[in-house]
């Protein structure tokens, strides 16, 4: 299916994109001042760092465990191959071929498609805002790890020294530390709670650190990724070795991987797998396009796409294993504590000698005592200790990192060391993803000419960082946590699906799959084989469409709720489910609507401008040249040498 009627006319397109000969010249003479990777390793590490992020550590293990453990691997791997790899290859190839950032690429393919680039930029911007706040939280915990007794290991004493703080006693030291001492969270999103000064400090330092790393574009990030992309693997390995030596770790791993084949019949499993593959590859952010455009023209993008996908998938599984060894340890400790507590209660009530009741004969003894003294047993309110319920507690998202994992760390010997290592790892994972997010914001801004051309890169990066830092102050208020989940659910989900779908359709049907195949043949030496053809044309867009439709329907049908930490609620310490106030819907529309609608809106805007101004299409194209690529080509050629015969191959 070629849909020739939709295809862009060859002539217009060829005027907007560099031809093969130009690319060869760029390659051989190393002309143009577009930044370049120092070596292939930098490129690979940057992409791996962008893709491997916090989601691999705290989203994938949860999905794996809740959707039937080992069985979840099947939909995950199938969708990785059918959805992740083709989309990745597409982005790499088109970026490498057109050698521009996201706005540049899409406006080169067709001016009406500029909206895709703008949408990518908006999403990258929204995600950068809140993602760096998570970095601030990680830094806060990191700063507080340099103490002998970790502050979240015990409840603080109350004002008159008579007992522990009530909020802490009713929940747990880690919960209290996270919700009260870190976030100082308000009971609902309407109370802003004011700026929390300690969080503002961490927030500013997170942005300052990010600024240093991105100030000169890939010149600086290329060096930073040697550490930020490799350190997490080292730390994960250390944790794996430590974890396997702890008691109960294998319970966790078994729980994670025990397959439940019935989950495969459940459509949500497949949807979640698809969504996880999609978000985990950081597609449609524009960052991947940008990074690939700094490659040499004949770089083997096909190989890269396959390697990166394998690395990403393997890292997810590896991280899940490590996380679950530690979770298994924590669950076993809690289970042991629970049983010991019950045993102690029994011993004390019945004055039995120590050692009479152990873990092994607990059930027997309880049963016999229940037979003889049932009322007494009732009155004791013995807790039911279930290992599986401990294993499935709150193990996703920030809850995993800041509550469950920190609790596990307090139970390990030499806790501060493990805490420092863990938070350094989280920081590196997040920072390397932030590089990609910021790239997806900075390069389009430069392409759109928002900043004056005389400004150096550092100034542009600095201004963007300061702006994002100021806007990001929403997230360091008392209610910041709720705002963050709002942004995460609505800003970072639906628009991406729309943009990715438009990308695929745009490249395959508007740019032309034939032209794309030729491009790839030019770049890597052989045409993409049947697998790529089928996935690009039908399979991947179909999967994206299905996921989008289901996601959209589910989100639209459910009343948006959020979970609040309210010490006055009845079920405290369980989080209270609250409905969002009505003015939030305007915010949701801005978050999800603007990036998503930017595609059609920009197209309509450009169409109207075209029609009403009746200018030549060609003439307008000069506006859209990128800053990163030499603009002088057209100017010099027409200005200095109007009659050179050799320029037949150029413009």
């Amino acid at each position, binding site marked *: 299916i070629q849909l020739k009627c939709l295809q862009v006319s060859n002539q217009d397109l060829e005027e907007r994109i560099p031809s093969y000969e130009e690319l060869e*010249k*760029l390659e051989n*003479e190393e*002309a*143009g*001042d577009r930044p370049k990777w120092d070596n292939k390793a930098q490129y690979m590490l940057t992409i791996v760092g962008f893709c491997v992020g916090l989601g691999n550590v705290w989203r994938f293990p949860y999905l794996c465990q809740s959707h039937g453990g080992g069985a979840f691997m099947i939909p995950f791997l199938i969708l990785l191959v059918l959805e992740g790899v083709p989309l990745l290859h597409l982005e790499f190839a088109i970026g490498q071929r057109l050698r521009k950032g996201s706005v540049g690429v899409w406006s080169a393919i067709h001016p009406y498609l500029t909206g895709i680039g703008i949408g990518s930029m908006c999403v990258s911007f929204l995600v950068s805002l809140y993602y760096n706040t998570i970095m601030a939280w990680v*830094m*806060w915990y*990191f*700063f*507080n790890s*340099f*103490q002998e007794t970790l502050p979240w290991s015990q409840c*603080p*004493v109350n004002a008159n*020294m*008579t*007992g*522990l703080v009530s909020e802490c006693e009713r929940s747990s030291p880690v919960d209290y530390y996270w919700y009260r001492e870190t976030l100082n969270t308000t009971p609902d999103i309407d109370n802003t709670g004011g700026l929390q000064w*300690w969080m503002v*400090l*961490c927030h500013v*330092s997170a942005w*300052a*650190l990010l*600024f*240093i790393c991105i*100030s*000169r574009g890939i010149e600086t990030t290329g060096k930073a990724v040697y550490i930020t992309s490799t350190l997490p693997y080292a730390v994960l390995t250390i944790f794996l070795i430590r974890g396997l030596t702890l008691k109960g770790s294998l319970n966790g791993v078994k729980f994670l991987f025990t397959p439940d084949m019935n989950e495969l019949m459940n459509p949500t499993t497949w949807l979640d797998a698809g969504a996880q593959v999609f978000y985990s590859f950081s597609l449609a952010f524009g960052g991947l396009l940008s990074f690939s455009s700094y490659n040499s023209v004949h770089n083997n993008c096909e190989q890269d796409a396959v390697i990166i996908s394998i690395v990403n998938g393997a890292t997810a599984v590896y991280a899940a294993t490590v996380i679950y060894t530690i979770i298994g340890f924590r669950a076993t400790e809690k289970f042991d504590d629970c049983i010991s507590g019950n045993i102690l209660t029994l*011993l*004390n*009530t*019945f*004055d*039995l*000698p*120590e*050692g009479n009741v152990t873990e092994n004969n607990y059930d027997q003894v309880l049963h016999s005592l229940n037979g003889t*003294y049932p009322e*007494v047993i009732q009155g004791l309110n013995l807790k039911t200790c279930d290992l599986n319920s401990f294993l499935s507690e709150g193990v996703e998202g920030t809850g995993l990192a800041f509550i469950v994992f920190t609790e596990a760390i307090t139970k390990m010997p030499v806790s501060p060391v493990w805490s420092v290592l863990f938070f350094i790892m989280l920081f590196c994972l997040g920072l390397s993803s932030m590089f990609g997010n910021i790239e997806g914001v900075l390069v389009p801004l430069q392409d759109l000419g928002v900043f004056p051309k005389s400004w*150096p890169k*550092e100034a542009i990066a600095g201004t963007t960082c300061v702006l994002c830092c100021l806007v990001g102050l929403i997230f360091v208020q008392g209610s910041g946590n709720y705002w963050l989940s709002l942004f995460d659910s609505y800003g970072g989900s639906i628009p991406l699906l729309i943009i990715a779908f438009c990308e695929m359709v745009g490249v395959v049907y508007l740019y032309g799959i034939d032209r794309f195949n030729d491009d790839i043949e030019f770049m890597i030496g052989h045409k993409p084989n049947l697998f790529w053809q089928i996935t690009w044309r039908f399979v991947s867009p179909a999967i994206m469409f299905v996921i989008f439709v289901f996601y959209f329907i589910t989100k639209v049908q459910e009343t948006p709720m959020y979970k609040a930490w309210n010490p006055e609620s009845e079920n405290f310490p369980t989080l209270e489910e609250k409905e969002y106030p009505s003015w939030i819907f305007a915010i949701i529309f801005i978050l999800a609507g603007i990036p998503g609608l930017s595609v059609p809106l920009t197209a309509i805007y450009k169409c109207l401008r075209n029609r009403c101004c009746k200018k030549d299409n060609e003439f307008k194209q000069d506006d859209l040249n990128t800053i990163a690529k*030499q603009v*002088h*080509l057209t100017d*010099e*050629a027409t200005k*200095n*040498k109007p009659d*050179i015969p*050799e*320029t037949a*191959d*150029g*413009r």
Partner: protein
Amino acid sequence: MVSKTLNAPNGYKVRISLKTALGEDAYEWNQSEMFFFQATMAFAMRRHFQMETYNVDNIILCVQTSRVSFWFVVTSPDNTTMLIPKADVEKAVRMSRHRINNAFLLSDRTLEFLGIYPTLAAPVNPDTPPWLIVFGVVIGAVCVGIIALLISSLLQKRRKEKGMTEDGQDEEDMQVKGVENGINLDGTYNRGFTDDDRFTKL
């Protein structure tokens, strides 16, 4: 047998968990240990009231179980029928709690006086919270980094400008020659390698 709660307004129940505290090194609780307990309590009473008349006979024990738990009451040394009120006993125990615990190699948790809650340790409040120190170090490093960055970019700029003004004359020629094939070349054009006679080969 469910443990009894005695109607003893002036008595305290004591519970000892040897195996929890000492594990394998736990000693056996026998009558000699009970005697030791009486002696320790007498010492505590002496210490609190600063009266040298308290003796082991003043500490009466009863309802001993295999848990190990028992009740005790303290009689006044002057009049053995009169019991020392609960509050005074509590004060005495609190004052010497540390000594009593150590005598038996136990802790507040494993040598329990039911009704006398252990005093909570006063939290150690350092003058500067430790996190601020680490924060200071990190921010200091970041500031140094930013300054170094700005300085190096300024130097680079100045070097470029100097380079530009020095071969200002050559710029024109280089530009003209450089655009030969529609591509701009960076850097100085080395005329030694100009292919002047490309088209004049015979």
